């Protein structure tokens, strides 16, 4: 219990357990479908990317869980940030996240996303991904093995089925100012276009 991120992870898991099932049947069904069909945008930001191929292919075959890789953020439900993020990469990650359709979730893969990992004192990697984006599930390790990633997916499935109002994308919407402030602080002048502007998009 002396690793720093554990309490946070614990809180994520505890929270999910504490939620009572107060959903209607339809909501439950919808949640079930969401949990059993996960389109993943695997963003290979760092060395974690190397663990992804075995996860998706014959050895571990995550497609059993209904997890499929997609190429564009528009179609994705889950964004995997695999490893350390430099500010430059982070911009693209944020951009990709903002282009995903809700509901959407983030898995932070590897220690680097949690606390900077072995790059803790690098001038060019961020130390806490959840300052900038709402992470729904961390999978720790350096690198985490595919088993760990699958475990993360299973946990995330449970979380999705719980249909929590604390889900990351809702956080991001409601606490956008907070995330945006952090992003602006990091990126300075070169910040991405504001996501908010797209929020109030009109229906056709």
């Amino acid at each position, binding site marked *: 219990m002396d690793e720093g991120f554990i309490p946070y992870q614990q809180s994520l898991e505890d929270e999910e357990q504490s939620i009572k099932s107060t959903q209607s049947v339809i909501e439950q069904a*919808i949640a079930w479908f969401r949990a059993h069909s996960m389109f993943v945008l695997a*963003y290979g930001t760092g060395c974690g990317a190397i663990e992804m191929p075995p996860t998706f292919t014959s050895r571990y075959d995550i497609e059993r869980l209904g997890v499929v890789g997609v190429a*564009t*953020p*528009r179609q994705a439900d889950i964004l995997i940030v695999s490893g350390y993020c430099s500010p430059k990469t982070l*911009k*693209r*990650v944020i*951009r*990709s996240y903002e*282009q995903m*359709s809700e509901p959407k979730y983030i898995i932070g893969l590897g220690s680097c996303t949690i606390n900077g990992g072995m790059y803790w004192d690098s001038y060019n990697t961020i130390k806490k991904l959840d300052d900038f984006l709402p992470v729904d599930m961390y999978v720790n390790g350096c690198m985490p093995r595919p088993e760990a990633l699958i475990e993360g997916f299973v946990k995330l499935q449970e979380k999705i089925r719980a249909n929590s109002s604390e889900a990351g994308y809702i956080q991001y919407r409601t606490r956008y100012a907070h995330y945006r402030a952090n992003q602006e602080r990091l990126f300075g002048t070169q910040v*991405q*276009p504001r996501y908010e*502007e*797209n929020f109030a*998009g*009109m*229906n*056709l």
Partner: protein
Amino acid sequence: MFHFEATLLAHLFFGLSLLVILPLLRRRDLVLHLLLLLSLGILFYASSLATLFIGWEMMGWSSYFILASSARVATLQRYILFNLGGAFALLGAIALLYGFMGSLEYRDIDASLLPPWAMNAIALLLFVAVFVKSGIIGLHDWVVDSYSEATPLFSAILSAILSKAGIYLFIVMFMVLLKEGATEPLLFEIMAWLGVITSIVATFKAISQDEMRRLLAYSSIAQIGYIITILALMQGFALEAALYHTLIHTLIKLLLFMNIASIIAITQKERFSELGGMIYHAPVLFLLLVIGIIALAGMPLLGGFNSKFLIYTALLEEKRALLLGAVMFSSASAFLYCYKLVYGIYLGQRPQEASLHVSPKSYYLPQLLSAALLVLLALLPSLPVGYLSVIGVELGFAPLDDSNLFILQSAFGSFHGGALMGAFGVAFVALLGLLQLAHSKAKKVKDPLDISYCGEVPRSETNLHFGYGMGYELHRISFIAPLLRHHSRVLWDRLSLIASDFSALLSSLYSLSAQHVTLLALLLFTLLLLGGQ
């Protein structure tokens, strides 16, 4: 006797060309346009070959003078020389006919009196005339440049009306006047294949063009290629298919060229690489163009399919499987340039500098009318069959069945335009409703640049308009690349070079000094004296 003036096509051509001329009312070259119309009238109403030729030639030179206001010198030369070449071939055929008939009146012509060699020679000469006007491969050099350099409105006339003159000539000469002639069937076989090869090559060329009107010019060549192919069957149903396609193609090209004229008036741009994203600036024009291209591609739900269907079934009925395969291939390839046309102009991202003008209102009328007719024809595909059959019946062919206007009949099957439209309409509305009712909310992007672009934020100066590169891949396909690389123009240029070399040689004779001239005269005298003795 055959009265073309009583047919739908004559009315249609007149009506449509009047419609196009409408916006020109206050322009300087109105007189020339009227002259052009007059020449069409002479052509259609002619009762002797001489009158026919007068109409044919007047059409040639009046269009030349209209074109002269905007085209380059080389283009003009090419235009007039090819057209005159065709016209002179026609004149040659007329002279040959006169040699046997002793008269130029239609009623005096009896092709059964012609010996086979003369009939074949006449047929060949007429082929040249028809092929030049229709832009059959090898003789199409003049078409594309003149279409793209004419004023936008005149391109519409050129493509929609004038390009059909060759078809008219073919029908009048081969199906009416020389019907009994003993033409070698091989000639028609060659003609059929030339037509389809033209359409295939022209389709590929159309795909690789960057200029709107050049693309459409090649498309016109391709479409007329089908008509030539189908006419070469020399059958009643083929004639009807050809006439139907002529009608449809006239409507489509009028619509498309007027649409492009509007776009040129709005943007002052001609190239796909400089256009794009006009859909939200000119949604009506977009819809009109979409109607045009769907019809051009020959999709069901718009009139374009009807004539394609008739063409296919006519070929099937004649059991010309390979010919049909080639026609269908060319027709399928046409989707690519159809899409390029609509994408290049209306879809994709808008280039950043944008000063837009207003399109003249008078440009809309021909477009709306054509579009309405195309939709109507889709619903009632047999509507014009009665009119088109008139010609066939007069020529002694059996008419198509048009008892139910909704159903287009052919020997190889039929289809119900109303059912197609209805089914599509119901499916469309139902699916649209489903989409609207879906739990998911449609969120419209605020900035058109908010595209999924590998996480990058494209800037306004980033060129995202892929349109002008479309068709580039064709250059890498081994059997298409040579078609795109080679151009018959090289041959013609070489011919012109030879002519001018010869000319230089001869004209040097005319710069001789007086002594040499007299010496030559003396020499001639002596030679003749010796030779004559």
